[in-house]
């Protein structure tokens, strides 16, 4: 009865994650029911709010862009066996890099010249903010989880200080920089479509979505097709084997963290150079943490991450719609779902494995008995 079978690959790669995601959403349904609304009605409103009309799709994809960046950031660190909780701070500091470059050069060059410079600056600043925890873990023995948590808070205090005292546009109350000049901000999707003669509603969606898709492809190349990627996966799987094959794990920990931070820093391309067109307080707005849910759900693979980002983008946009339809549901429900996804796809990832192995074992024995 309790004989266990080895799970086939498809069960491991597809079935278990699917079961875990389903469990997370069932639990979310229970929460909705507790609140006193019908979960199925909520799903319907959510889907309509996320995909029902062109403005909704625009916002959904705009959120998706952020989550792809932070999801990739978390995934690269995961491959090296590191848990980067600091995506939030790295993205925030990345915004400082992007913002400074844009504010310095926006009157000198058009957006298409500025974009590569801004990407470089965002990645560099994000990488620097992750480099320190990576270095401290590799060479000073402090744990990257704790250090990145601390760095989130330090980043937040630093940015408040800079925005309130240094970068603020003179003569205004709100702690924000001046707007980036018009020609230097990223083209919005509705402007692009208007150029093609198609009219769509104005949304914050801009061409950084393409940057995100390109980044996903490059991460795939990095992790599965390059020497660095191999070394990163190797220290994640078996550090002592990595040492024997001539990999310096300390160096790779630092490299993996820096790459991870640089990807998180790209959030600022979407927010600072695209949607907000200036540096504002808290523009990251939790994307760094959503990236953790996205990476866990997408199994650290770029394709999975894009799909999971789309799901979370839809949840964030559709969640805003929920508040209009139901008096007692707000977007905070999406935060609950996010927590449940991290719980079921992350912490409880192995829960269903045992029962499933037993189930497969049962089938195996039956088919053997039949023969």
């Amino acid at each position: 009865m309790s004989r266990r079978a080895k799970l086939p690959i498809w069960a491991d790669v597809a079935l278990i994650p699917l079961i875990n995601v389903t469990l997370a959403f069932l639990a979310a349904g229970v929460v909705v029911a507790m609140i006193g609304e019908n979960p199925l009605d909520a799903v319907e409103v959510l889907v309509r709010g996320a995909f029902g009309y062109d403005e909704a799709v625009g916002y959904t994809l705009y959120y998706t862009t952020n989550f792809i960046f932070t999801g990739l950031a978390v995934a690269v660190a995961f491959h090296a066996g590191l848990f980067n909780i600091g995506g939030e701070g790295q993205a925030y500091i990345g915004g400082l890099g992007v913002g400074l470059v844009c504010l310095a050069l926006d009157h000198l060059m058009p957006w298409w010249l500025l974009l590569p410079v801004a990407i470089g600056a965002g990645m560099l600043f994000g990488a620097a903010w992750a480099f320190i925890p990576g270095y401290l873990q590799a060479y000073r023995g402090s744990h990257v989880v704790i250090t990145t948590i601390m760095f989130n808070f330090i980043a937040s205090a630093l940015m408040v200080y800079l925005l309130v005292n240094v970068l603020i546009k003179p003569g205004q109350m709100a702690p924000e920089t001046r707007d980036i000049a018009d020609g230097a901000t990223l083209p919005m999707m509705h402007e692009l479509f208007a150029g093609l003669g198609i009219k769509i509603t104005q949304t914050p969606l801009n061409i950084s979505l393409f940057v995100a898709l390109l980044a996903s492809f490059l991460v795939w190349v990095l992790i599965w097709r390059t020497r660095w990627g191999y070394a990163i996966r190797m220290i994640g799987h078996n550090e002592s084997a990595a040492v024997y094959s001539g990999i310096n794990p300390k160096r790779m920990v630092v490299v993996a963290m820096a790459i991870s931070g640089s990807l998180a820093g790209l959030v600022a391309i979407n927010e600072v150079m695209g949607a907000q067109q200036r540096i504002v307080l808290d523009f990251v707005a939790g994307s760094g943490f959503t990236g953790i849910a996205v990476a866990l759900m997408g199994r650290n693979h770029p394709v999975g991450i894009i799909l999971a980002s789309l799901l979370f983008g839809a949840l964030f946009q559709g969640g805003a719609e929920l508040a209009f339809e139901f008096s007692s549901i707000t977007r905070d429900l999406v935060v609950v779902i996010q927590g449940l996804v991290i719980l079921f796809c992350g912490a409880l990832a192995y829960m269903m494995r045992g029962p499933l192995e037993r189930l497969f074992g049962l089938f195996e024995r039956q088919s053997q008995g039949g023969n």
Partner: protein
Amino acid sequence: MDIWVQLISALDSTLRLATPLILCAMAGLFSERSGIVDIGLEGKMLAGAFAAAATTAVTGSVWLGLITAMAVSIAMALLHGFACITHKGDQVVSGLAINILAAGLSVALGIAWFHRGGQTPALASEERFRPLSFPFSDVVADWPIIGTLYSDLLSGHNLLVYLAFLAVPLTYAMVYKTRFGLRLRAVGENPQAVDTAGISVAWLRYRAVIMAGLLCGLAGAYLSIALGAGFVRDMSAGKGYIALAALIFGKWRPVPAMFACLLFGFLEALSTRLQGVDLPIVGQIEVQFMQALPYVLTVILLAGFIGRAVAPKAIGVPYNKDRA
């Protein structure tokens, strides 16, 4: 004399601000000394705060509020245990899930139940833990120095403040002077040895996370029905993480951790008082600098630049009996 009054008032608020930190740090101590990483202090405290305020608002009883806070916080701790001990899940991921769940659920349920944008109804003063006066504090009040120390600084806090400071020696006694404590420390260093001695690793660790839940629940209740008068969205505001930093700063020991909490509490008390004040030599100190200081200090400590903080050896590693 003015400086003396200022100092006493700063120390007075230090005690208030350090209370939730101390309770959470002791909570983290139980969990982490048993080998279970607990970054979910924040979430358990927040859930406790919501449970306490909601229950007290409905029933009018602080005691029911306090009990519910502990129960809810323990339930979340058990969830953490279920994921990390029973199913050998990643302890950091599980703790993060608890933090995010608490942040979402407390507001989502609050809006559904009370329709106040995530706040619970304001509590009247008899629905909160009120300041307790020490005996003779009004008599002693006029005496120089001793009067202010006794009547203003030590007397006049609510029950939970005193409970927090009582929790430190109790934790010390439990961890260092009892059989449970010896086993607790052993299971965090070398679970195989504990298992070989015929003691259940899982049950020991479950008891440790239950203790953590209980203490976080107290911290949450303190925030919403003692210090505050009701629940406000995200009212824990990173205190759980500061407590974690203090625990590390105190090298996972009760008394040093308490002093770290007092230090961080003092920094917070100062940061509001020093706003816009010109100090000799250094000039004005920015609030943000004071806010970031606990985190910066912890990073520097962890990096081994001031002393060395060595975590329990088996921390973060799920215990696998088969492969022992």
